C-alpha cells in the first residue's frame, strides 16, 4: 500500500504505468492517506508555477505587450486556482464513486481518490510550462499531456477498479463527459469574473 501511494508515484507513472495500476488494484488506500500524501501538494504545483511565471514575465496572449497583474491580485488568483483545482479533484472523485454503482466497480472512496490523482498527475507535472506564460506554448504542451492523462484513464480505470475493460471504457467516457463539462464551467465562471472586475481589466 505504501508503495502505491507516495510522492514518487508521479515518476513511476512515467516509467511503469502498468505497475502503478496493478499495485493500486490490490491496495486499499484510505481517502485521507491519498489526499494528504499526494493530492494536497500535487495540486499546488500548477498555481505555484502560474504565480511564479506571471509575476516574472506576465501572460503573453499573442499580441504585443504581456498582461501584467499586481502581486496581490496574482496571489488572490493563484489561491483561487488552488481551491478550484481542489474542488475539481474532490468532485471528480465523488462523481467517479457515484458512477461505480452503475458500472459495478469498487466503491471505496480511497481508491477513487487514488485513481483520479494518478490520472491528473501528468497534468500537474506538465503545468511546469506555466513558468513560461505564453498561452499558445501552454496549449502546445498541455494538449499532449491531456491526451496522455486520457490514455491513463482509459487504460488504468478497469484495472484499478477491477471491472471488465468494456465496462471501464463506458465509465471512462462518462467521466470524460463530466470533466469536459467541469472544464467549460470553469471557463465560463472565469470570464464572468472578468466581467465583474476580478482579474484582467476589460473595457465593459
Amino acid at each position, binding site marked *: 500500500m505504501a508503495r502505491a501511494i507516495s510522492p514518487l508515484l508521479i515518476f513511476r507513472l512515467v516509467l511503469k504505468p502498468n505497475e502503478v495500476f496493478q499495485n493500486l488494484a490490490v491496495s486499499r488506500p484510505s481517502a485521507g492517506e491519498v489526499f494528504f500524501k499526494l493530492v494536497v501538494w500535487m495540486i499546488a504545483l500548477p498555481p505555484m508555477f502560474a504565480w511564479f511565471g506571471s509575476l516574472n514575465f506576465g501572460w503573453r496572449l499573442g499580441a504585443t505587450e504581456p498582461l501584467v497583474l499586481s502581486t496581490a491580485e496574482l496571489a488572490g488568483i493563484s489561491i483561487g486556482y488552488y481551491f478550484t483545482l481542489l474542488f475539481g479533484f474532490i468532485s471528480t472523485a465523488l462523481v467517479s464513486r457515484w458512477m461505480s454503482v*452503475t*458500472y459495478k466497480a469498487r466503491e471505496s472512496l480511497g481508491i477513487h481518490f487514488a485513481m483520479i490523482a494518478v490520472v491528473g498527475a501528468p497534468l500537474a507535472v506538465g503545468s511546469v510550462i506555466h513558468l513560461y506564460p505564453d498561452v499558445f506554448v501552454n496549449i502546445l504542451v498541455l*494538449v499532449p499531456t491531456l491526451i496522455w492523462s486520457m490514455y491513463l484513464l482509459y487504460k488504468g480505470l478497469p484495472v484499478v477498479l477491477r471491472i471488465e475493460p468494456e*465496462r471501464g471504457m*463506458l465509465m471512462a467516457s462518462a467521466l470524460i463527459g463530466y470533466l469536459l*463539462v467541469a472544464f467549460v464551467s470553469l471557463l465560463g465562471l472565469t*470570464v464572468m469574473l472578468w*466581467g465583474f472586475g476580478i482579474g484582467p481589466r476589460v473595457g465593459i
Partner: protein
Amino acid sequence: MAPAHYHDKVVRVLVLCSVFWAIVGMAAGVYAAAELVWPGLNFDQSWLSYGRVRTVHTNVAIFGFGVSALIGTAFYSVQRTSHVPLFAPGLAWVVCWAWQLALVAAGWSLLSGHTSGKEYAELEWPFDLAIAVVWVCFAIVFFGTIARRKIKTIYVSNWFYGALIIVIAMLHIVNSLAMPATLFKSYSLFAGSQDAILQWWYGHNAVGFLLTGGFLGMMYYFLPKHAERPIWSYRLSIVAFWAFTYSYIWAGPHHLHYSAIPEWVQSLGVVMSVILLAPSWATMINGIMTVSGAWRKLRSDPALKFIVLSLAFYGLATFEGPMMAIRDVNLISHFTDWTVGHVHSGALGWNAMITFGTFYYLVPRLVGGELYSTKLANVHFWMALAGTMLYILAMWAAGVTQGLLWLSLDEYGELLYSFTDIMASMVSYYGLRLVAGVIFLAGAVLMAWNLFMTVRGRETAKVLPPEPVANPAAASEVAA
C-alpha cells in the same frame, strides 16, 4: 402477390451520398481553415475566397452530410417501427436524387457568389423553392408510412424525425420569404432587427430541430437496436421530447445579445436556453443508461464506441450552449472562436460521431454482410476523438484570448489592440485547428473506404416486414 419488402435501396444510396458529402464538406472546412493560416491559398480567385469556401463547408456538411444521413435513416427506421414498407417509394427516390441535385447546384451557386447573406440560409430564392418542394415530398413519404403503420404506438424516434420535418419546413419557408429582383438575387421581406430576430429564430432552430432533434431521432432508433435492449426509460424520452420541442423554439435571441433587439427578447432567449439543459441532459442520461447495460457489445463492436462518445460530447455541447447564452459569458465569447469551437464540439463530437456509429451499424446490415474492417473502424474512432479534442481546445484558447484582447483598454480608455493585431496573433491556434481538421477528415476518409469495400459487389438485402401479431400494442413495445 409476393409480400412487399422494405425499400432499402434508397436508404443505401442516401447513406453513400451522405458519406460522399461528408468528405467534400470536411475537405472544404480544412481548406477554409488553411486559408486562415495562409491567406494566399485563395490564389486571387474569387470562387476560392474564404467567404465562399466557408459557406460551401457549412452548407455541404449540414445539408449534404447531415440531411442525407437523416433522410436515409428516417426512411430506414420508419419502415421498421411501422412494420410497413415506405409509402410512395417512387417519391422517396425523387426526394433522394432531387436533394443530391439541389446540393450540386447549391455548391455551384455559393462558389459563384450568389448569397442572401443569411447564415445557414445563404441560398437564393430558386433553391429555396426547390428545397421546400423536396422537403414536402419527404414529409409525404414519412408521414404516409406512419399513417399506414401496423403498430399502434408511434415510436419516439419518429416523433423526433417528425418534428424535424415539420419545424424545418416552417423555419425554412418563413425565413426565406423574399422579393426576387433577378434570377439569383432577392431581398428579404423583413427589415432591420426584425430580420435579425427571424434569422436567428431560423438559425438556432436549424441547430435545434435538425442537428439536435433529427439526430436524436437517429439515436433513439439505432442505439437500442445496436445495444439490443430497450431504451432505459421510454417515459423519460417522451417527456424530454415535449420539453425539448417547447423550449428550443424560443432560444434564438441569445445570438443577438447587446444588439438593437429589445432587452426583454434577449432575456427570454437566455431563460429558455438555460431551461433547455433539462430535456437535453434527460436525453443524454437515457442514452448513457441504455448503453451501460450493453457493455459486452463493445468487445466486438467499434460502432457502439462512437455512439458512447457522441453522448459525452452531446452532454458537453448542450451544457456549453446554455452557458454561453448567459449575457455575462456572452460578453466575452460572442464573435470569437469560442463559438466556432462550441459549434464543432456539437458538429464533430455529437452529429458526426453518432452518424459514423450509425453507418458502421447500418451499412453491413443493408447488404447482409460484415463490415470490411473492424480494425480500420477502431483507428477511425481514435482519430475522430483526437481531432475533435484538439479542435475544441484550440478554439477555446483562441476564443478566450480574442475576447480578452478585444476588450482590453489602455490608460486613456482607448482599445489597446487593433483587430489586425489580434487576428495576426491567432495564426498559431488556426494552425492547430487545421491539424485537428486534417486528422478528423483523414478518419472520415478511412470510414468511406471501409464502407465502400463493405458494399462493393453486394446487392441490397431484401427484408420483409414481420408477420402481423395478435396484440399490436404489445408489438409496439418491441418494434424499436
